[in-house]
């Protein structure tokens, strides 16, 4: 059998820089690796000496796509450390903003980054010519999600009005009613897009490898903004225990921090959330989960993109319910945060589009940060991607090299990796 040598440098249609390496000879694999070549930015180092009210503004810059999630994890960590209380209105608004980010990120990933694989093209651009109707529908959903973030958070990328304790500006009831109507109007479009994906879902490989899934869990909602840490292997822990769940470590062949819990590796993200919180999904989301035959516990990582699509319905339906709650009570636009600075340590977790995210800060009595730690979803998935590679590659070695390469790329893309979130995503050292 021929030699297979695949070296995808700087994988495309993912956020950040990563490489795929596969060397096989006579049907056996000599090396298969998912490598990360992102430049380090040292966020945990640079926030030392910064004030409590600057933390979210700096750490949201970890990620362009999930800057809202980083903002919320950051605010929760700061609030926990300083003992800052938030109002019910703030908690609902933040849930809405989290849902808006989920929608924006999921539509971008499924519509712009994954769909080209299902249609066997290199990017979304040729689809503008061949499938204009579908592309414009996806674009309109992307715009809606961004408009929702802009309205609630001031800006989609790097929010402008979110601060410890609440908000510096709050939308009017009229604007919130308008948003509710836009979400209601978008349901048929989401349905059309989901149907297109369903019609083409045959392109998703049928690959299963048992793993552990970790996500936020809550008693009364599909947890994305708040909750405890849950595992499909059983168990529930408070966020403060995050270090005993993530167990970051460094392996000799990679200087990236890996994580592991019960098994060799674990997975976070939409599929993990759906596997753990399936019963809390909204009605439409459940209907679509059934159409895709997706039920817990699904161990096919390619279904993560489908789980994202199903979450879109959940985000729309729960957002409408939250907006009703806000409007029923009346919106207090004059509410402003009250903060007293004191020393302390606090942790915050949210489940961002790519999975569970932790921020952990320590402040001195002047409110100056002295120590920070951030554990990023993609970091937690890195190990699982490598384990998937080891199980998946042998099953596709008989295919043409080009197809093997595409399938490995699709596997990484399914995780929707966000490599720039490289707080401490170390560069991989490899020997050629």
């Amino acid at each position, binding site marked *: 059998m021929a030699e297979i040598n695949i070296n995808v440098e700087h994988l495309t*249609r993912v956020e950040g820089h990563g490489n795929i390496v596969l060397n096989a000879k006579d049907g056996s694999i000599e090396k298969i690796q998912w490598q990360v070549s992102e430049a380090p930015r040292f966020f945990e180092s640079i926030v030392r000496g910064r004030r409590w009210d600057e933390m979210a503004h700096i750490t949201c*810059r970890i990620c362009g796509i999930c800057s809202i999630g980083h903002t919320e994890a950051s605010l929760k960590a700061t609030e926990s450390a300083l003992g800052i209380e938030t109002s019910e209105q703030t908690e609902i608004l933040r849930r809405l903003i989290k849902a808006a980010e989920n929608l924006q990120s999921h539509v971008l990933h499924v519509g712009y980054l994954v769909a080209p694989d299902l249609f066997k093209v290199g990017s979304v651009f040729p689809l503008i010519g061949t499938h204009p109707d579908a592309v414009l529908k996806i674009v309109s959903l992307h715009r809606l999600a961004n408009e929702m973030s802009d309205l609630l958070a001031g800006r989609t990328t790097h929010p402008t009005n979110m601060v410890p304790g609440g908000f510096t500006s709050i939308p009017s009831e009229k604007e919130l009613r308008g948003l509710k109507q836009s979400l209601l109007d978008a349901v048929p479009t989401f349905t059309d897009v989901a149907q297109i994906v369903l019609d083409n879902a045959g392109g998703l490989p049928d690959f299963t490898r048992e793993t552990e899934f970790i996500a936020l869990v809550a008693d009364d909602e599909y947890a994305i903004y708040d909750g405890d840490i849950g595992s499909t292997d059983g168990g529930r822990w408070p966020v403060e225990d995050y270090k005993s769940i993530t167990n*970051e470590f460094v392996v000799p062949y990679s200087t990236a921090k890996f994580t592991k819990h019960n098994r060799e590796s674990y997975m976070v993200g939409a599929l993990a959330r759906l596997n753990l919180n399936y019963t809390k999904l909204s009605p439409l989301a459940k209907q679509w989960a059934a159409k895709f035959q997706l039920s817990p516990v699904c161990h096919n990582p390619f279904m993560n993109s489908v789980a994202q699509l199903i979450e879109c319905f959940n985000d729309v339906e729960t957002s409408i319910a939250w907006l009703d709650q806000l409007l029923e009570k009346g919106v207090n636009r004059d509410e402003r945060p009250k903060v007293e600075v004191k020393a302390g340590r606090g942790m915050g977790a949210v489940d961002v589009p790519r999975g569970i995210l932790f921020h952990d800060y320590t402040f001195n009595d002047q409110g100056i940060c002295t120590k920070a730690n951030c554990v990023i979803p993609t970091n937690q998935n890195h190990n699982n991607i490598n384990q998937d590679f080891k199980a998946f590659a042998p099953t596709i070695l008989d295919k043409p090299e080009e197809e093997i390469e595409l399938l490995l790329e699709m596997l990484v893309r399914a995780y929707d990796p966000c490599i720039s979130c490289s707080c401490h995503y170390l560069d991989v050292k490899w020997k050629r």
Partner: protein
Amino acid sequence: MDKPRVAFFDFSSCEGCQLQIANLEEAVVEVVKLIDIVAFREVMKEHSDDYDIAFVEGSITRPMDVERLKKIRENAEILIALGACAHLGGVQRLSNQWTSEENKQEVYGDYVSDPDDIADTNPFFEKPRHRALDEVVEVDYVIPGCPIDKGEFAKVLIAILQGKKPPIPDYPVCVECKKKENVCMFEIGKFCMGPLARAGCDARCPSAGNECEACRGYVSHPHSNAQSDVLEKYGLTADAIMQRKTMFTYRYEEAGKGGD
């Protein structure tokens, strides 16, 4: 006439500026009619080194990044810095306050068993210091901001396609803030970089009730004395000033000068 060939590249950044191009939404369809996008790793698999215009996001960190940027400069007729990381070095430039060894120790120290893994002998870890593009190669134009404003990106693109100089404002954020009749941030007890910071964002942060952090850098000739007077009027300390000044503008501190 052939459509100009345009490429997008990213270095150390959150890639949020490239995301603003996707956020043009329906207008992307119009943009694609005007230009041929021949490289854009974040959204397309195809890649060509034959391009006229290069948009580059991110700060330049390691020797390998310098080499990559120099190649892009050789290939491109026009090179445009996209966003605060490319323009100023980004928030990550704050890490230049410490040596790279100190940064590595703080971030990875507890997790590394073999110090070689994060040593300069690892090419992906060689001397990480964050710099702006124009500290490495010649840059033709800058689209400032963290992130860039998508409307401004469209304006700059159109100007370049017409062979004109892109219209980037060179007056402070206060001008836009006053036009919007916002309450001055200093009046509500906040610290604002508006008097020194380059406008063009429509005073987005102050309009949302939050202070300006000068993500677009300083105007060419900042009225530093005026800023000092404002600070004095509101009783702010020198320490607070130095801290706040640096979130996006550590470049100026490093260079020991007041403008770009």
